[in-house]
C-alpha cells in the first residue's frame, strides 16, 4: 500500500511548482498576508527552466522606451515574447508590470544591471527598439527562494502535486506525493486557492537524439503536469493543438538559441534570412532562430540545409561575451564542452536543429487577474496559453496571481476534502504501482508515448484525421496498460510513472484539439485540410474536459487590443 501522511496540510494558497512563476506568486500572496505553501518537485534553489540562470528579461521601462506603451506592445509582439498566439491585452498587462518586477528583483540581490546600467540587447527585428534587458540570473533562484521565505511562504521541496481537488465548482485542495525519501508518501492538501506553475510539457515528443530523453532544451522536470492537472480539474486550455517549435544546437540541446551571437547560415556561411544587417553584434544579432525556429528543419526538407549558427565573424571580445552571457543564462556547459573538446567557434560553425514541440505557452487560459476558468485556480508561466513573455511572463503573472489569490482567499471558507472520491481512486492507483512486483518500468511507456506523438500527432510533419483517430486510440490503450502494468522501485521511479500518466493525458488533448482544427495553420499542417480557413484568423481554440471525460472545444476571438 502507498504510505499516506496522517495529517492534511492546510493553507490558503497552494503554489504548484517553485519555479520562476511559482516563487513570484508565493512572494506576492504571502506578502499580502495569505498563508502560502509552495510544493516543489525538486528544490526551489535550483529547479525548473530558470534553475541555473536566465539572461534576458523582456520589459518596458518608460524612461528608456518612451511613454508610448502601445509602441512597446506592438514591437514586443514581433519578438519571441509575442507572436500570433497571445492576447494583445495580456502583453500590455505584462509590460505594465515589468519595471516593478525588475526593480524588486534588484532589491533581492538579482543582478539586473551587470554593467552598472540597464542594457537592452538582441531578440528584436532590425529597426525596432530593444526590449530585452540583459541581466545575470545565476543567483535568481536562491534570491527568490529567500524572498519567498522572508515573505512568510512555507516551502515543501521534493513534493510533487498530482491532482487539484475541486468541490462545488471551486478549488478545495490537492493531492501530492512526497518523494524526499526512498518510499513515496501520499500527502493531502486543503486550500482555498491554488496556482499551477509547473512549466513546459517537455519529453512529450522525441527530440534530436531520442535515446537520451533528457538531452533536451527545457528542464526535463517540466512534463506538462500542470496542463494535465488543469485539464482534469475542468479548467479551460487554449491552442494546445498548435505545436511550438524551438531551435538550438542540434545534438547538444542546452537552452536553445538564447544569446548565441551569430548568423543562421547555410554551408557557405551566408545568412538564410534578410534579418542580418552588417556584422552581427551582441546588440542586434540575428533573430532568425527566434522568429523562424523551424528554419533548421524546413531547410533540411527543401534540400538547402543544413543550417548552422555561424559565429566565425565575431571578434574575440564578443566570443568571450557570449561565454559570460551563457553563464548568466544557465548554459555554461556549452562553453565547457567547447573547452573540453577544443572547438573554436571562430573557425567552425555549429549546426542548429529545430526542436520538437514542448507546448511552450499553449495551455491554461487566464485573464488579467491570472485566474483560470475554474474558481480558485490560477496559472502563470510557460504553462499558460494566451500569454508569452517567458521569464518575464512567468514573473509578472505569477505576481498578479499571488495578489489576486490573496484577496480571493479572504472571501471563501475552507472545504472538507477527505471525502472526495478522487482521493480513494488515486490511492488505489498509487498502491497498485507501488505494490506490483513485476511490470513495466516507466521508460517503456515514456518512449512509446513519444513514438505515438511523433507518428500520429506530429508537430514537425503533416497531420491527418486518420492519424489523429488512431493516435487517440493508441494513447488510451497505453494509458490502460500503464495503469495495469507500471512498477516503481523507489520514489524517484514512482514520480516518473506519474509523469508518464500526465503526459498521456496531455497528448490526448493535443490530439483531440488538433483533430478538431480542420485547417492548416502555423506548424499545424493537415494533408486533409491544406487550406488556411480565413474565418479562423485571430481565433483561439479553447478546450475543457467535463467530469465524464468528454472534451469540449470552441473558438473564441483573440483579443487584439
Amino acid at each position, binding site marked *: 500500500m502507498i504510505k499516506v501522511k496522517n495529517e492534511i496540510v492546510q493553507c490558503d494558497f497552494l503554489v504548484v511548482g517553485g519555479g520562476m512563476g511559482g516563487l513570484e506568486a508565493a512572494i506576492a500572496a504571502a506578502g499580502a498576508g495569505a498563508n502560502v505553501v509552495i510544493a516543489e518537485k*525538486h*528544490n526551489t*534553489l*535550483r*529547479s*525548473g527552466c530558470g*534553475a*541555473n540562470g536566465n539572461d534576458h528579461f523582456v520589459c518596458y521601462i518608460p524612461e528608456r522606451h518612451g511613454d508610448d506603451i502601445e509602441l512597446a506592445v506592438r514591437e514586443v509582439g514581433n519578438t519571441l515574447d509575442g507572436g500570433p498566439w497571445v492576447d494583445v491585452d495580456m502583453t500590455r498587462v505584462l509590460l505594465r508590470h515589468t519595471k516593478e518586477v525588475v526593480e524588486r528583483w534588484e532589491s533581492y540581490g538579482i543582478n539586473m544591471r551587470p554593467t552598472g546600467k540597464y542594457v537592452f540587447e538582441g531578440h528584436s527585428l532590425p529597426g525596432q527598439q530593444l526590449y530585452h534587458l540583459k541581466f545575470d540570473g*545565476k543567483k535568481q533562484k536562491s534570491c527568490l527562494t529567500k524572498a519567498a521565505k522572508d515573505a512568510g511562504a512555507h516551502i515543501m*521541496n*521534493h513534493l510533487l502535486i498530482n491532482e487539484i481537488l475541486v468541490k462545488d465548482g471551486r478549488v478545495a485542495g490537492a493531492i501530492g506525493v512526497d*518523494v524526499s525519501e526512498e518510499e513515496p508518501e501520499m500527502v493531502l492538501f486543503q486550500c482555498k486557492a491554488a496556482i499551477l506553475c509547473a512549466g513546459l510539457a517537455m519529453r512529450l515528443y522525441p527530440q534530436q*537524439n531520442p*535515446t*537520451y*530523453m*533528457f*538531452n*533536451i532544451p527545457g*528542464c*526535463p*522536470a517540466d512534463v506538462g503536469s500542470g496542463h494535465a492537472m488543469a485539464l482534469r480539474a475542468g479548467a479551460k486550455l487554449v491552442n494546445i493543438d498548435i505545436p511550438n517549435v524551438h531551435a538550438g*544546437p*542540434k*545534438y*547538444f*540541446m*542546452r537552452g536553445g538559441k538564447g544569446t548565441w551571437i551569430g548568423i543562421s*547560415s547555410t*554551408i*557557405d*556561411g551566408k545568412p538564410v534570412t534578410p534579418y542580418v544587417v552588417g556584422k552581427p553584434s551582441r546588440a542586434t544579432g540575428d533573430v532568425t532562430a527566434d522568429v523562424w525556429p523551424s528554419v533548421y528543419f524546413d531547410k533540411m526538407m527543401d534540400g538547402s540545409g*543544413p543550417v*548552422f549558427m*555561424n559565429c*566565425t565573424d565575431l571578434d574575440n571580445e564578443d566570443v568571450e561575451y557570449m561565454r559570460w552571457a551563457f553563464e548568466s543564462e*544557465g548554459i*555554461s*556547459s556549452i562553453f*565547457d*564542452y*567547447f573547452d*573540453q*573538446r577544443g*572547438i573554436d567557434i571562430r*573557425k*567552425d*560553425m*555549429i*549546426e542548429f536543429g529545430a526542436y520538437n514541440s514542448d507546448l511552450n505557452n499553449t495551455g491554461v487560459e487566464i485573464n488579467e487577474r491570472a485566474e483560470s476558468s475554474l474558481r480558485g485556480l490560477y496559472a502563470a508561466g510557460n504553462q499558460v496559453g494566451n500569454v508569452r513573455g517567458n521569464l518575464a511572463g512567468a514573473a509578472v503573472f505569477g505576481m498578479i496571481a499571488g495578489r489576486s489569490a490573496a484577496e480571493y482567499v479572504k472571501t471563501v471558507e475552507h472545504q472538507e476534502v477527505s471525502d472526495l472520491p478522487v482521493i480513494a481512486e488515486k490511492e488505489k492507483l498509487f498502491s497498485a504501482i507501488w505494490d506490483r512486483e513485476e511490470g513495466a518500468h516507466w521508460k517503456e511507456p515514456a518512449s512509446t508515448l513519444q513514438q505515438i506523438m511523433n507518428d500520429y500527432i506530429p508537430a514537425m510533419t503533416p497531420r491527418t484525421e486518420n492519424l489523429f483517430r488512431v493516435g487517440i486510440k493508441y494513447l488510451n490503450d497505453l494509458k490502460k496498460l500503464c495503469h495495469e502494468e507500471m512498477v516503481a522501485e523507489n520514489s*524517484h521511479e514512482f*514520480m516518473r510513472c506519474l509523469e508518464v500518466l500526465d503526459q498521456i493525458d496531455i497528448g490526448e488533448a493535443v490530439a483531440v484539439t488538433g483533430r478538431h482544427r480542420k485547417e492548416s495553420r502555423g506548424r499545424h499542417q493537415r494533408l486533409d485540410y491544406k487550406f488556411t480557413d480565413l474565418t479562423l484568423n485571430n481565433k483561439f481554440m479553447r478546450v475543457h474536459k467535463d467530469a465524464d471525460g468528454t472534451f469540449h472545444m470552441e473558438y473564441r476571438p483573440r483579443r487584439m487590443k
Partner: protein
Amino acid sequence: MPPIINRKKCIACGYCAEICPVDCLKLDKKAKKLIVRYPDECWHCGACKTDCPQGAITMRYPLSHMMLAFPPDKEM
C-alpha cells in the same frame, strides 16, 4: 557518465543531490557516498558543479550529446 565526482574531494554532504533539478544524484546515507544514480537523466545543467562546496564535481559530456561543428565553405 556525467557528472564526475572527485572522490578525494567529495565529503558526501549531499548538497548536490538535494538541489539537482532532475533528481539524478543520490546520497547513499548508509555508505556515506554520493552516487550518480540516474546518469542518463542528467540535464547537463551544471548546478551540482556550481554549487558543490568542495569543488569536487566536473562534467563529462557524453557522445550522445555531440556538437556538430563544420567550417564555412568559402569556396562556394
